[in-house]
């Protein structure tokens, strides 16, 4: 983990309100693991001060021949414009400066090679699943992505997943793309078919809760990637905590989302007592 004072290579709207930003980050790919995140801030003045956390969508390298330039390593974030900070990011251009701290946090446990893997993404929650999918395929596992959104605009980067070899299944609440209904419906069907599957989920809290309930009742191993309001991203401010299993006022078991997470084994969290107290998008942005 290190602080990159760097530049944007590109920043494009890929679906209404969703952006994809490619940032120059030499040396980053070698240290970034699936599920980790970065803290980003534009090098502007102070319309917003704090950095914003984003999952690492993918890393890559522009080949040397490209425009006569040396090879350039980059990382990409996918983000949804929800407030002031993401709005400012969305207005940045190629060549603009950003600072990026990372990679941060603990990523996914890749589980048993060869075992069936089900990735469940809700909206922008699909971000950390792409690198995960690649890593799971590389270890010889079969990988299926169950992707849910409110409407077709919330379904992102499907071709990219498919190109990498992941099988994809889409559902939307309004039925405008894929199957109509919640992604948990698809998950239940798949879990009944592959009872041995390991499940990985990232998305809005209500979805994660439903996935956790389902996996608990069907005894499937589940890892979730959580969101929380963050200031430092490194475990210093204690702003980002979630309740771990066994938490009570007398025996506090607060876990830092930034340092102990953002990926947790679902069994390590206290789902009953409003685990993720961060309202995050409140389920609104899905």
């Amino acid at each position: 983990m290190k602080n990159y004072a760097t530049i944007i290579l590109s920043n494009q709207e890929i679906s209404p309100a969703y952006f994809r930003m490619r940032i120059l980050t030499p040396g980053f790919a070698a240290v970034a693991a699936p599920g980790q995140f970065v803290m980003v801030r534009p090098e502007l003045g102070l319309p917003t001060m704090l950095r914003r956390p984003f999952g690492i969508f993918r890393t890559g390298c522009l080949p040397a021949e490209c425009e006569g330039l040396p090879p350039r390593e980059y990382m990409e974030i996918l983000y949804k414009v929800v407030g002031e900070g993401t709005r400012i990011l969305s207005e940045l251009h190629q060549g603009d400066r950003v600072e990026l701290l990372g990679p941060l946090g603990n990523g996914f446990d890749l589980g048993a090679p060869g075992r069936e893997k089900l990735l469940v993404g809700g909206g922008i929650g699909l971000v950390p699943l792409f690198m995960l999918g690649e890593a799971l395929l590389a270890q010889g596992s079969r990988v299926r992505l169950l992707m849910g959104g409110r409407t077709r605009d919330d379904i992102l980067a499907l071709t990219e997943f498919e190109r990498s070899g992941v099988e994809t299944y889409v559902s939307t609440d309004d039925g405008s793309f894929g199957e109509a209904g919640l992604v948990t419906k698809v998950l239940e069907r798949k879990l009944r078919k592959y009872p041995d599957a390991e499940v990985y989920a990232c998305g809005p809290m209500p979805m994660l809760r439903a996935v956790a309930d389902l996996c608990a009742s069907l005894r499937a191993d589940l890892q979730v990637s959580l969101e929380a309001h963050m200031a430092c991203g490194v475990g210093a401010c204690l702003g980002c905590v979630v309740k771990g299993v066994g938490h009570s006022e007398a025996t506090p078991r607060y876990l830092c989302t930034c340092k102990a997470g953002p990926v947790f084994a679902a069994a390590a969290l206290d789902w009953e007592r409003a685990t993720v107290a961060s309202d995050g998008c409140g389920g609104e942005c899905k």
Partner: protein
Amino acid sequence: MPATRPSLAVEIAGLKLQNPVMPASGTFGYGEEYAPYLDLNRLGALVTKGLSLNPKAGNPTPRIAETTSGMLNAIGLQNVGVSEFIQGKTPLYRQLTTPVIANFFGNTLEEYGEVARRLADIPEIAAVELNISCPNVKQGGIVFGTEPTAAAQVVTLVRKALQKPLIVKLTPNVTDITVIARAVEEAGADAISCINTLTGMAIDVKSRKAKIANRTGGLSGPAIRPVAVRMTYQVVQAVKIPVIGIGGIMCARDALEFLIVGARAVQVGTANFIDPGVMMTIIDDLEQFLVDEGLTDINQVIGSFTG
């Protein structure tokens, strides 16, 4: 360029610091969190997260929200407790040359005394910073910081409990901070830290709810700097003991404002979250300022306010 580098060294209550820059309590964890990013030995001192007698869970979440040029927090002083601190955190401090200042608080007068006694004989702790100013806990904390008699009482008790330099951290949430400053000086404080966060509130207009679960929180960051500079200036005038300036310092120029009105050192808080290397930049830039001004010693800047 002068042949020798200018001196940034300052002294506070017998503590010799290589430079006047240290992190503000609660914004730098126990130090270990930032060790991968910067050389802790370059800091003037290291100030820990506030400690209490028993581990403390802290407040419900969300605990933080950003506001214009500032942030609100209601962490609620979550910490590992003084025993775990001594066992788990001090081994790192043994390897440091930078002095470590333990920030602590109690829910009751007795608890303040007990934590002080536990810290008294720990050689890795060079000094203590008594927090009588946290706005985020129901009992204790702020009561001791807003009432001069209570403030004097807790300082007297802690003074008796340990020999180490005793720094007392004041709250800005009072009508006249100089009254409290004089009370803690008389009760035996060796230095004053000025200021803790200002009580604030932020509302989400769609849900009509407070943005943090505790409803109110402590405001920090650039938004509070002018208030902090004013209070530092007033406290410096009111007492003879050294004052450490805190509040919204983002760069060397901000730190200089505090030093010029008489602060002997500064603490950097929220800025660490925005740029984990900020204290290193501030130290370098303070040195450059001395060079540019043709000065040889940071003490020539301290208290150089000309009205």
